[in-house]
């Protein structure tokens, strides 16, 4: 006989809930007490367990809002019956089974554990069973779908035999950007002529920026750098692009210079945790990248150990990933210092907000030809502003000044960098 699974009333005032996710696939066998699905009310997350054993047929859809007492699913005595019932259900419901993102009642990020690549093996049940076989999906696509919380059942595969491939996940409108994305906000002015809820990314940026400003004692110091020597150097590197295999940019050169300075000033490559100062052993530099809907900050690791060529490749790789919304967890964590290039949108100097828990962030502006005085004469020089925001809990003005001075030294006489190359 068929057992029903319904949405329980969890509190006196509860009227409805949001379905977060199923832990079991259609047609799978469950035992009594096994966790079936997770729902969320405005107060809590709750796991619904099977009250009997049987083969599951799911009814409630992920992200759907359901009423107390509504049918969530059924347990059948045979797998065949469960699968047939599931198939029938799909035929009845129209294609538009996913609520629009503005109806998102799921909190971002969701608190329940996602199937990661490592625990996919522990939970093979995460794979949907459809018809008399599995959903065909490549391993890479499966991992990306899990990371982005895309429901494989809603994807049509474009590979041979209907296999779901990476490109299908990447093209999916459901795909969400990585959950933890330390971001830098550049505040635009907005007119209040319409109201709409924030996207999850915007909400995350909003919260992080507030947290950064309220929890640290940040200030910004400025300086100017004569980029004449760097320009000459960079031109010769660009001329060698064919041999090097990549086009070196100013960002690469500045990143490398920053890595040099951080090696000499480890006190900046650190952060405050309560009453402790935590020093970081790696020099991993975040690079602010503008993407549709906001910013992300992918991290280049061990910049002190990379050659300019390697650095450039890595930068290109990460920016491409960022623009295609393919950054993974490992690409956006672990940074010890961040660089933001305002010059890329015509900025000069700004007061960037720290990418906490980092203690410093360097902004560079565009390079403009301006009048400067050299040896008593007025000459035209390519100058660039640097804006160094630092956490005054840890870094005093003098130390920040030394950082800027050292950076200026390296960039105005780049031969000094070559002398330090290992």
């Amino acid at each position, binding site marked *: 006989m068929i057992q029903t699974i319904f949405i329980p009333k969890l509190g006196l005032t509860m009227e409805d809930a949001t379905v977060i996710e199923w832990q079991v696939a259609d047609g799978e066998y469950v035992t009594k007490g096994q966790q079936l699905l997770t729902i969320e009310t405005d107060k809590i997350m709750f796991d619904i367990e099977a009250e009997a054993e049987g083969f599951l047929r799911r009814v409630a859809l992920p992200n759907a809002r359901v009423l107390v007492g509504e049918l969530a699913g059924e347990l059948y005595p045979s797998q065949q019956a469960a699968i047939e019932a599931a198939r029938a259900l799909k035929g009845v419901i129209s294609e538009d089974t996913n609520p629009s993102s503005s109806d998102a009642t799921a909190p971002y990020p969701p608190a329940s554990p996602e199937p990661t*690549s490592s625990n*996919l093996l522990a939970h093979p049940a995460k794979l949907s069973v459809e018809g008399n076989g599995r959903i065909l999906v*490549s*391993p*890479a*696509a*499966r*991992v990306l779908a899990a990371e982005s919380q895309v429901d494989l059942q809603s994807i049509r595969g474009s*590979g*041979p035999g209907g296999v779901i*491939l*990476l490109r299908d996940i990447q093209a999916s409108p459901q795909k969400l950007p990585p959950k933890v994305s330390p971001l830098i906000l550049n505040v635009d002015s907005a007119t209040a002529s319409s109201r709409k809820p924030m996207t999850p990314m915007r909400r995350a940026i909003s919260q992080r920026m507030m947290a950064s400003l309220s929890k640290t004692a940040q200030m910004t110091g400025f300086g100017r750098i004569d980029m004449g020597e760097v320009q000459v150097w960079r031109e010769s590197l660009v001329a060698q692009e064919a041999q090097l*295999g990549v086009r070196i940019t100013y960002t690469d050169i500045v990143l490398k210079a920053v890595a040099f300075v951080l090696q000499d000033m480890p006190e900046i490559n650190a952060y405050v945790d309560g009453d402790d100062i935590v020093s970081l052993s790696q020099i991993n530099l975040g690079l602010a990248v503008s993407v549709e809907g906001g910013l992300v900050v992918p991290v280049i690791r061990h910049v002190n150990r990379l050659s300019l060529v390697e650095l450039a490749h890595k930068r290109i*790789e990460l920016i491409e990933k960022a623009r295609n919304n393919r950054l993974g967890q490992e690409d956006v964590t672990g940074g010890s210092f961040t660089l933001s290039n305002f010059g890329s949108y015509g900025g000069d100097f700004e007061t960037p907000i720290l990418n906490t828990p980092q203690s410093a962030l360097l902004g560079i502006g565009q390079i403009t030809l301006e009048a400067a005085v050299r040896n008593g004469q007025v000459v035209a020089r390519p100058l660039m502003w640097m804006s160094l925001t630092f956490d005054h809990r840890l870094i005093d003005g003098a130390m920040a000044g030394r950082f800027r001075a050292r950076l200026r030294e390296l960039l105005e006489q780049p031969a000094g960098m070559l002398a330090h190359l290992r």
Partner: protein
Amino acid sequence: MTSKTYCWALIDAMREEMERDPNVFLIGEDVGPAGGAFGGSRGLLKAFGPLRVRDTPISEEVIVGLGVGAAMTGKRPIVEVMFIDFFGICLDQIANQAAKMHYLYNGSFKMPLVIRTMVAAEMGIGPHHSQSLEAWVGHVPGLKVVMPSTPRDAKGLMKSAIRDNNPVIFIEHLGLHRMKEEIPDGKEILIPIGKADVKRIGRDLTVVATGLMVGKALLAAEQLALESIEIEVIDPRTISPLDIDTILTSVRKTHRALVVSSAHKPFGFGSEVSAELMEHAFFHLDAPVGRLTPPFTPQPFGKGFEKFLHPDADRIAAKVREMLR
């Protein structure tokens, strides 16, 4: 930098190492006055004399055996087995003796032996002179196996092989002997054993190719580039120990891999790469790992047969397109 052919690059490597270390010597069939049946040791007899460059009888087992014994007693021999197809005659000395001396006697002996041999697939010499048998020796612990595809790699790897204290099977391809490349002049320019080379950076699919197939893969890459498909071509250069890390890094980027080889598919080099990728890059794969090889037949004599059986640039490109569907 000087333009050198693959064949002369190898001769240069041996000459430089024989000049550097008087313990290095070369024996094999026709290596002396004839300068090698395919010209692979021209000028060496004149430079080093008849004890250090010496013709042997046609006796592959004792050619390799002599190398084993000399290596155990302080010398650094290079022994030639003209075609890798002849390994059946001397496999005991290679696999049971050379490969195991250092291990069996717990480090008492080093085995700084280079066994220089040749794959002549697609060279029109017939079924006993056309096989690519690196899998036979790749399967034996204690041996190292290298397979360079360019003059620069050949020279650098030969030097490394001679300086290595382990038995190294050095597999050249006859079809590459005339390939020319600008190579640096220095005598201390070595290519490390166990390090693969990315011959072409790409994005959409990783092609792992060995020996004669490297050039074909690069040609296929140019064809595909016109269709905006950018393949990454990796030349392992060393069969064993295989630099799987370079291949893994590539596949983590491209999510697809194809192994192209002159050897057969069953139990061949492609199987090894495929298994390693399955084990270590499974969750990065967007398609099954492909293997493109000749079909599982002996190699009959005749250009028509060879062309039919062996992958060429067009077929590599077609396979890549198929894998990208």
